[in-house]
């Protein structure tokens, strides 16, 4: 299984960042190329800009470790695990790592590219909005 990791440092606290990451329905607000997301229990359905709906299973949403994990349902993707970790850098900033483990390998590059772009957008939004998230 191929693995791609993207990361970004955000000038917001880890709690602020995880408040967004851990609210799974908000993903369409900060993930370019995703136009809609609905959540029902541990199932999230996202729809991409190209009109492709994809079902995901949320497998981890741990606000203490600040780890969010989900799997894209099998289909043209055989196996997938997306992991978003938010690390407290101790100075009001946080490190966000977004990993994609995927088979087929080629799709890890495509999904990983999109996640890298999403982290840039998440940083932009959070750094423009300096209000505490909660």
């Amino acid at each position, binding site marked *: 299984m191929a693995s791609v990791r993207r990361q970004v440092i955000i000038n917001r606290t880890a709690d602020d960042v995880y408040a967004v990451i851990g609210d799974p329905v908000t993903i369409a607000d900060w993930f370019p190329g995703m136009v809609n997301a609905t959540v029902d229990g541990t199932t999230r359905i996202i729809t*991409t800009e190209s009109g492709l709906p994809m079902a995901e299973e949320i497998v981890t949403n741990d606000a203490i470790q600040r780890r969010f994990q989900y799997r894209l349902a099998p289909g043209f993707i055989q196996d997938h695990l997306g992991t978003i970790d938010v690390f407290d850098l101790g100075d009001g900033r946080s490190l966000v790592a977004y990993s994609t483990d995927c088979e*087929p390998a080629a799709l890890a590059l*495509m999904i990983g*590219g999109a996640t*890298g772009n999403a982290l840039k957008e998440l940083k932009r939004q959070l750094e423009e909005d300096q209000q505490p998230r909660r």
Partner: protein
Amino acid sequence: MRKILFVTTDQQRYDTLGCNGGTLARTPVVDALAAAGIRYERAIPQSVVCMPSRSTMLTGQYPSTHGVWMNGVPLPVDAPSVAADLHRAGYRTALIGKAHFEPFMDAFGRFTENLLARSGNETAQRPWADGTVGPHRGFDHLEFATHGAAGMLHYARWLGANHPEAVGMFYAAIDAGWNVSALGGGDTDAPQVTANPIPRDWYHTDWVADRTIAWLDGLDATDDWFCWMSFPDPHHPWDPPESEMHRILWKDTPLPAGYPTTAAERERILDDKPRHWRMWYDGDLVSNYEAPKHWVPATMTADQVREVNARNAVECELIDEALGRVLRAIDTRGWTDDVDIVFTTDHGELQGDFGLLFKGPYHTDSLMRLPLIWRPAPSAHIAPAVVTTPVGLVELAPTFCAIAGVDAPDYLQATALPIDDQDATDRDKERVLTEWDSELWGVGVHLRTITRNGWVCTTYRPGFVHNGNEGELYDLGADPLQHDNRWNDPAVAALQSDLVADLWDHQPQAHTPRLDVEAPV
């Protein structure tokens, strides 16, 4: 002002044109342009894969500088663009066919060039390098195609809407594992080959010409225009309309000069090169996505080489005929005397050389010696010539500026193509640089190459199978097939040192930060 028809093909070898000595495909249209214009005998890409090379054509910059260091890295939307400068100068601007400045694989619909096809809009307003907001990359009309009917581009949508029965006729270039397919077909079970029953006038080569003619027909007679007509062929898959295969029978097709006919000879030649060559041949290393992951070159038969070459040649003939139709349309509009025509491609194809197919980190003539013809507008009164001095595709953008009378923008890293060898000498044109960088699943390969004074010299940076001391050095005159690697030959040690020093002295500025790979291709 002079108008510009910029014609590109994809992955076409120098020796596929009659004017360059090719004997397989008949290319009378391009041959006539060469006879009336300037034929470059050593035109060299700055990268031997599509996205970096095409980005160089558009930006007039080396891959290190524009930042598209391998396929899958999108050219930033606000990268420099010669089309933007021509648009600013009043030119109508179009790109019809294969662009590939942005990845095709785009499940999230993130890239403008994919979204335009879906929206049906001619262009989109995007920022330019200088902060101006204008049509995407400076093109006010964009219609895209690639090598088949899969995906979301204009040609695929057109075929699906008008001839849905033809969509499945093409070779499926990507397999179920999302790798470049190794599936064999045709008469010889050659990879990326299939018999395609599609009628010729539904095929993408004719579609690109049709759409180009339609765009030209919509212009006013007094418009100045820059049209990049970009054919997806003769890039694999080799699946031209089967109705045209009678032109060149594969069983009668000679083996290319670069194909060593015995395994022992192939292995001897490959073993004289840095070891990724032989490792790929044996199936021990696939360093780049563009090569089918599950195909082993050592299994290729001579008949497969013949069939691939025959199909490739048919595709070249169809391109030549399509170009002829466009030139007749231009003539009908009364524009011929004022139209500059530039014909080239983005990189070559191994096509049996060394017992290999496709492309990768292999800087020899198979991939680096390209067709390049410039037929200046007759009204410019530039004498026909043959240029033997090495030139690079990085010189195209400044050439378009010169044709249009636009001051050369600061971002350009080269000057216009020479109009003859004396012009090249007068302007100190002597070296051309080529780069390769790829990193795929921990396998990094990094080449830097200089072509100068009849020699081509490649150095290797440390990578997955290289320690940074490897190299290749070929005498292009004495060894036109690059079978004799002189890198370790003491007789040319001084020359090797000089070329390497020259190479490192002229490395282009690096784009910072390095851009991410965002898709396989």
